[in-house]
């Protein structure tokens, strides 16, 4: 068991309502869980709970003895920061060191290997901000690899990626799960969520948790996305209208 939540709720200071409540789910080694929900539905709050940035206001949350790695949205990362792809991957080593230690030669080697695994060995010395969106996303996955955490959180890793980059990232994530890491991916893409092992639907409370085949019913999708859902005529399926992200879109 990598993470185990039992009726967990979390609130921000000054807020009357909890940002997310009734979280009851488990993340296990080798399982890929898609976290679905609208903007403001509690996906980011869930990630903050799991990284330890936020403490539950009620309920019980058991976290891995090791660490949790977070792969943020590359659109939100700093492109003006003067670091190389290797520097960013090496940042993962910081989580395993006390504050007075410096990354060792072995850590640098690990960072190089991680860049190789994500297919960017030849871009190790490139400036992070000069890479494409898909490459940056893979560098951030490499950082999580260097961190060597058993549970990896991914925040909309496919947003803004072109099809070849998305395929490449998808294969990489499947590999990570196959080697026994637990993955939790925040996403807006219901079709993509159907392809993963489990789904966790949030809309300020937990709506559903389980295998997509049984958990992703029309009722669950409607309760997750509320009125934002548009039924497709005749097909029995529904789609989400184009939504507005709360963040700015960066380069592709």
């Amino acid at each position, binding site marked *: 068991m990598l993470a185990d939540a039992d009726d967990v709720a979390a609130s921000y200071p000054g807020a009357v309502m909890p940002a997310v409540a009734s979280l009851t789910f488990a993340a296990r080694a080798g399982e890929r869980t898609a976290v679905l929900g609208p903007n403001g539905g509690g996906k980011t709050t869930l990630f903050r709970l799991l990284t330890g940035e936020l403490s539950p206001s009620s309920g019980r949350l058991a976290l891995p003895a090791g660490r*949790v790695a977070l792969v943020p949205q590359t659109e939100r990362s700093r492109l003006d920061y*003067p670091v190389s792809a290797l520097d960013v991957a090496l940042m993962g080593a910081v989580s395993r060191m006390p*504050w007075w230690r410096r990354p060792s030669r072995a850590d640098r080697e690990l960072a190089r290997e991680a860049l190789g695994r994500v297919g960017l060995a030849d871009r190790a010395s490139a*400036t992070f901000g000069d890479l494409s969106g898909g490459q940056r996303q893979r560098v951030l996955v490499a950082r999580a690899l260097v961190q060597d955490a058993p549970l990896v959180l991914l925040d909309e890793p496919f947003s803004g990626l072109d099809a070849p980059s998305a395929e490449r990232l998808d294969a990489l994530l499947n590999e990570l799960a196959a080697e026994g890491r637990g993955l939790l991916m925040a996403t807006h893409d219901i079709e993509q969520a159907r392809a993963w092992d489990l789904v966790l639907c949030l809309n300020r409370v937990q709506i559903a948790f389980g295998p997509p085949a049984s958990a992703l019913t029309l009722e669950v999708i409607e309760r997750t996305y509320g009125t934002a859902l548009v039924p497709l005529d005749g097909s029995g399926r529904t789609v989400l209208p184009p939504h507005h992200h709360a963040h700015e879109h960066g380069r592709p």
Partner: protein
Amino acid sequence: MIEWLTDPLSQRIVVRAIVELTLLGVVSGALGCWIVLSGRSYSAESLAHAMLPGLVAAALLGVPLLLGGAVGLLVGAVLIGLVGRVPRLDDDVAVSVVITSLFGLGVLLGLAPEVPAGLNGILFGDLLGITDLDIALAAGLAVVALAVLTVLHPSLVAVGFDRLNARALGRSPVGFDVVLAVLLAAATLVAVQALGNLLVVAMLVGPAATARLLTRRIVPMMVVATTVAAGASVAGLYLSYHAKVAAGASVALTLVALYVLALVARVITDASGPQTARTARA
């Protein structure tokens, strides 16, 4: 030519000023990189201005400027915290209101006939009045600041890059802020005697901003910023000696001139060689 260089060195006060400026340049160059990279230039300037009333009060009371500046900084920080709590007032508005009020109060106090050094010395520094104690303080600051920045370097790089996810890396963004704020306050306090309340910001921000334009990695940026800070300030001192102009002002102007030169160089290289950044993004 050689006299041009050696003449000033025959005067003890000039040698002291050179030693002081080199020490402050090393600290400001390295620390300034973190201030520029984390977008805190405005805070650095505010911090320096907030302590003006404290400095003037110290001059009036005849106590060390360092003490007055420290009290001034504390009062400024508390006031910014309090004004920031006023509903519907943004933090930067709070900072602006407090800083301009304090600065105005400082100038008002400084114009009192009882202030011995005069407002000039406090605003623009007294480079040629550097004492052994000033040099000892600057040397102590250099040792401590460089040690802290070296030891914490990997954590500073990681938090500065990805503040929102610092927790996931086991680091605290608040710790990052506190370390930078304490070093900045210490550097401002120690440097104010030599550089003055207005010019201390030029030394903290100017060389780092120059280095930002010329480098693409953090450590080279710090090396260039340190070299620029120490080199430009000594050059400015020579300029002031030979041109017989105010020392602090010529140091600040040299720093700004180097920034403009770097900016021009950057614009020219970007225009002639765009392939480095753009085609690599495929």
